[in-house]
Structure formats: C-alpha cells, structure tokens
C-alpha cells in the first residue's frame, strides 16, 4: 500500500512544536472539551505545569529521577546488519532500555512529580499495552503515591505479564468490560472515575491526547527523547541531522517527543500507525476524550473500534498535534499491517539482537517496506524511536510464530 499523504515541499520548518495557541489549540485541533466537572481540574493541572516547567528546581528534580531511576540518557544504537541489508543507515533511539521498558516512564515521572507538587496522593491512569500502567505503578511506588489503573479486559488477557507487574508494584488494576474492552474504553472509564476523584487524585494520561493541557504537557515530558536524539545525531552523523525521523503512533506520545527534537530541522517526520487504528491517516474531525482531533468514525458519527495486534496502537484516534502536523504537511502518517509488524519484530530480533515491542515494530516495518520500494531513498539516514521492548508481547508472538 502506497501512502497517500506526502510532504508539501519544501518541508516547513520551525514554530510547529512550541506552545499551543490560546485555548490549547494546535491549528484547529486540541482544546478542552471536558465535562464541566473536570474543567477546573484541567485548569489546575495547566497552571501547575506552567509553573513547574518554568521552575529550574522542578526540572532538576525530574532530570535526576530520569537519570538515577529511569536510566536516561538512552543510547543511540546503529543498526549495522539491518542497515546493510536495507541500504539505508538506520539508528535506533533505545527507549526500550529505560527502566520499565518503554518511553512511557518519561511522561509518568513528570506527571507524578507534578502530582506531588499539587498535593495529590493518588494517580489514575488508563493503559492499553500495560506499559503506561506499569510506569504509573512504578512512579507511584517510587514517590509514595497510590495508583489505580484502568485496563480493558481484552488487554488484560493479552498483556498478562504487565498486569502482574502492576499488581506487584502495589497498583490496583480495574478491568474495563464495556465497548471494545481496549484502550478507548479504559480511557473513558478513567475519565469517569476522575470526575469523582479530582480532590485527591491526578489523572495521569499516558499519551498526547485528552483535554488541554495534556497533549502539550505529555509532549513536553516526552521531548527528552527528541532532545537527546538530536544531540546524539549531531555527534554521530556526518550530516548532523538524519534525513528521516520515524516513530510509531498510538495516541502519539513517543512520536511527538521524538519529532519535537527535530521540528526545526529539515528532517522528514514519519508517524507509523497500525492499519486498524489509523486516526491520523484515516480519521475524521471529531471530539473524544476531551480533545478535538481525528478519530475513526462510521457514517453516523459513532467512534469505530480500532483493531491492532499491538495493544498500545489499538486506539481509534490520534493526538491533536499530530492532526495539525499532518495538515501542515510537516509530518506524514503511514500505516502498516499486523503481519508486517510481526515480521519486522522477528527481523530486528535476528539482525540486531533486540526484541522490540509490537508497537515499536510498526515503525520498523515501515522503514523496511519503504527502503524496499524506494519511498526511502537508498543511503538515507533514518532515526527510528524504538519505543519499547518486547517482553510483554511474547505470549502474543508465541501463538503466531
């Protein structure tokens, strides 16, 4: 399948990943479409985040946690054998090597510190793959907070390892039995729960979705991926910046954090969605979970269920900033199938000795396909964010391989 959306040439630079405009807008997307009962809570998070982000003390405390607890900075790994086979120069930003095994910890440590600053004693989270849930449970344990994690029943089955990890870390895991019993419904249930718990709880959203300020705040907490990678590329690459920057997109947090480091460079930004959950590539304008963005919908305006082998990509929408980057032509959004992703996971394991999360394998699957069909010109340098490690997916893979 060729991708329909192309860049407008030349690649537009700069100014596209700063603070959102008034009322949390990225172009026409974003906003705070929250029920009235949550509006004040969102305003408090916004106010506190702005203060904290401008406070060197907060930044310092977060940087230290990221270093001593999460293991940052993560390395940039040249994928030597795979590069040779594909005819491109592929570098992997190794978020799989963070503590808890995915980029989700970057955002969660930020929000958990913010929650303690706000005097909250409990974190609420939704999770799909369980990585955000595990990260939330971890941060809660680390900072002496409680954690309640909502997870679709279907995901509880396919990500059993992470459910156990969350419980071992002391978090309460609440099964969600409504709708598609995946990430979308877990998010709805977490929001419902938050309405009744704003007094003592912080809702720690796991991706660049939700009401303002979440899409912006989560991107800022994930910016560390892109900022580090930018510096590492400057040191490692002859050209200083890669030709292509690629990341998988569920809600879009690892991609947003990665892109943020390169928005003001000529690098071409590519977000890779699951074919069955392609909010950016196939969604229509809508409002869900507090923000205006692109969502998969039927002809009556009902949100349709996403389907992906990767639980973390099983979401029918995409963060508002990605919708905006798409409209601007600054980033391009492509899709890969379950089979392509599984194939890519195996290939990475055998060529580089790295078992990736199925989410991350989507990004690699596009690199492999695009290198093959010339979409990615021979000799291009490619930075790909490897958002997480594959341990959680072994039972899914075992059934298939």
């Amino acid at each position, binding site marked *: 399948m060729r991708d329909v959306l192309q860049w407008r040439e030349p690649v537009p630079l700069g100014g596209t990943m700063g603070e959102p405009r008034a009322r949390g807008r990225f172009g026409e997307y974003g*906003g705070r479409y929250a029920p*009235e009962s949550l509006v004040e809570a969102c305003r408090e998070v916004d106010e506190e985040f702005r203060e904290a982000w401008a406070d060197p003390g907060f930044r310092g405390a977060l940087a230290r946690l990221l270093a001593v607890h999460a293991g940052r900075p993560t390395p940039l790994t040249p994928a030597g054998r795979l590069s040779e086979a594909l005819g491109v120069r592929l570098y992997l930003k190794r978020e799989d090597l963070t503590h808890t095994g995915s980029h989700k910890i970057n955002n969660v440590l930020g929000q958990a510190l913010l929650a303690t600053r706000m005097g909250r004693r409990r974190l609420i989270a939704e999770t799909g793959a369980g990585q955000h849930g595990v990260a939330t449970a971890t941060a809660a344990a680390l900072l002496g907070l409680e954690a309640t994690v909502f997870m679709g029943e279907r995901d509880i089955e396919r990500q059993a390892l992470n459910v156990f990890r969350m419980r071992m870390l002391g978090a309460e895991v609440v099964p969600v039995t409504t709708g598609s019993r995946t990430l979308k419904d877990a998010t709805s249930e977490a929001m419902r729960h938050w309405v009744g718990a704003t007094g003592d709880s912080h809702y720690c959203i796991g991706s660049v979705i939700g009401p303002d300020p979440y899409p912006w705040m989560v991107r800022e907490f994930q910016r560390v991926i892109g900022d580090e990678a930018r510096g590492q590329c400057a040191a490692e690459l002859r050209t200083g910046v890669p030709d292509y920057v690629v990341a998988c997109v569920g809600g879009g947090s690892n991609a947003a954090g990665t892109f943020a480091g390169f928005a003001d460079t000529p690098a071409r930004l590519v977000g890779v969605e699951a074919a069955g959950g392609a909010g950016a590539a196939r969604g229509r304008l809508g409002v869900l979970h507090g923000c205006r963005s692109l969502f998969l919908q039927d002809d009556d305006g009902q949100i349709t269920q996403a389907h992906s082998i990767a639980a973390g990509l099983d979401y029918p929408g995409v963060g508002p900033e990605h919708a905006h980057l798409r409209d601007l032509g600054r980033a391009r959004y492509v899709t890969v199938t379950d089979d392509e992703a599984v194939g890519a996971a195996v290939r990475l394991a055998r060529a580089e000795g790295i078992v990736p999360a199925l989410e991350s394998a989507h990004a690699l699957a596009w690199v492999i396909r695009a290198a093959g069909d010339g979409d990615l010109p021979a000799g291009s340098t490619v930075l790909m964010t490897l958002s997480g490690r594959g341990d959680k997916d072994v039972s899914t893979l075992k059934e298939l391989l």
Partner: protein
Amino acid sequence: MTSPALAAGAVERHLRARRDTGRGLLMPYVTGGITPGWTDYLRAFAAAGADAIEVGLPFSDPTLDGVTIQQASETALAWGASTRRILADLAGARPPGQPDLGVPLVASTYYNLVLHDGPEAFCAALRRAGVGGLIVPDLPVHEADELTDVAAAAGIELVLLASPATPQPRLAEISGRSRGFVYAVSLMGTTGERAALAASAAELTGRIRRVTDRPVLLGFGISTPDQAREARRHADGVVVGAAVMRRVLDGAGPEDLRAFLATLRQALDQECDRPR
C-alpha cells in the same frame, strides 16, 4: 431593555411560566431508539406530568455517563439508532394535524455527533424534528462559541451545565449564556442512581440563584420521590435519567414509567404546596 423572560426561547418561556405558578419542574430522560416503539415513552412521560422531556441521542463513548445510560446507549445503537433515525421517529410521533405532546423536547448528546453533521445542519435537523433545546455535556462554556449562535439562529436553546466545581465567576457566565434553563449537576460524578441527594446540590443551586433568575434544574443521581422533594427545596425542578432508564432496561413499558413518574410528580407537587 426587554426582560429576560420575553427574550427567552420557547423552552424557557414554557418552563418559566410553569415555575411561576409554583410548580416543581420534572424533566425525565429517555435514550432515543432504546426500543422499536420508544416514542410511546414520550406520550407516557407527558401524561405523567412532565414539563419537558430530554431525548438522548446515543453516542458510542458516553464518557460522562454511568453504567445505566452506557448500557442504554449501547442497546439503542445495537437496535440501529442514529441521530437521523431518532429525529425521524420524533417527527413521526407528532404528525401534522395531530395534537402535540404539549411538552418541549430537549435533545442531549456528545459533541462528536454535533460536529459530525456540522453545527448548522445538526441544529436545523433538531428544529425540523420539533426539538427545542440541546444539552451537550462535553461542550463546556469556553468551547461553546462555535455552537451558541448557530443554535440560536436555528431556534435551538443551548442548555449549559454547571458543576459543584465551577468557580463563581464562571458560574455567572454559564448562567448568563445558558438558554432554556441552567442544568445544575448535583454531584462530582457521572450519571447514575444514588442513595441520597448529594450535599453539593444545595450549595450549587444556591450559588446559581445568586446570579440568575433562569429556571434551574438539578440532575445526576436523582432517583426517588424523596430525593425529588428534597431537590425541589433548592432548585426549580429535577432531571431524572438513570432511574428511568434502569426501569426501561429491565423491561418496564411506557405505562410502568408513567406510574413511576407520577410518584415523582406527586412528590414535587407536595413540596410546592409548602412554604419555600
């Protein structure tokens, strides 16, 4: 300057007129399309003494609803309910020349369904189906600009919600910009039956009354005649949703609902006989 009562739309005029006679207002809710013959519930509600009827247009992801209305939405969607079909049913339920229900209809839904058709087309379709008001729980006042003028131009009264968490200056803005009535959310939570009226209900309605004389209806959690009676002490009336829909989901027909709503009607009438 015209008085607010004269400038008001038809829903608000109707509610003000009834309130001004001392009557406690009753607005039952039904999920559109919940059964094939669902519009029979509207007639039963009117017969039980409803002052307005809220018709839910079901959405796949009702993020502010508790289990009962979630289930009702899912059931209606499984029957094939859609905005278009429900509005067609409504138009069919009040054929030209036949006596009207005599009760204003207020649609409620999530903003995605409004955006899907586009605010103009959506409001025009409501109007054609005889709907007078609209409630959109995930469209707070600061995002409502896109819909307010369009709704007003189409003759649709856009009802805004106020919450116990709403600070006073914002409450004044909501009360000023709301049309039809002010929807006071009684508690910090989702829709669904509760054992008692939340303490926050009295405090919130008191704060709203300080800034408007528009009718104020309390909703969320009001399930029994006792709760309706207590709510009436603070507000002009009540919205009853989950308590209706649980009965409908359990198989109760229009006649059963008429009987249930009559108990609420009676409770509200008793309360208004007492000095306030």
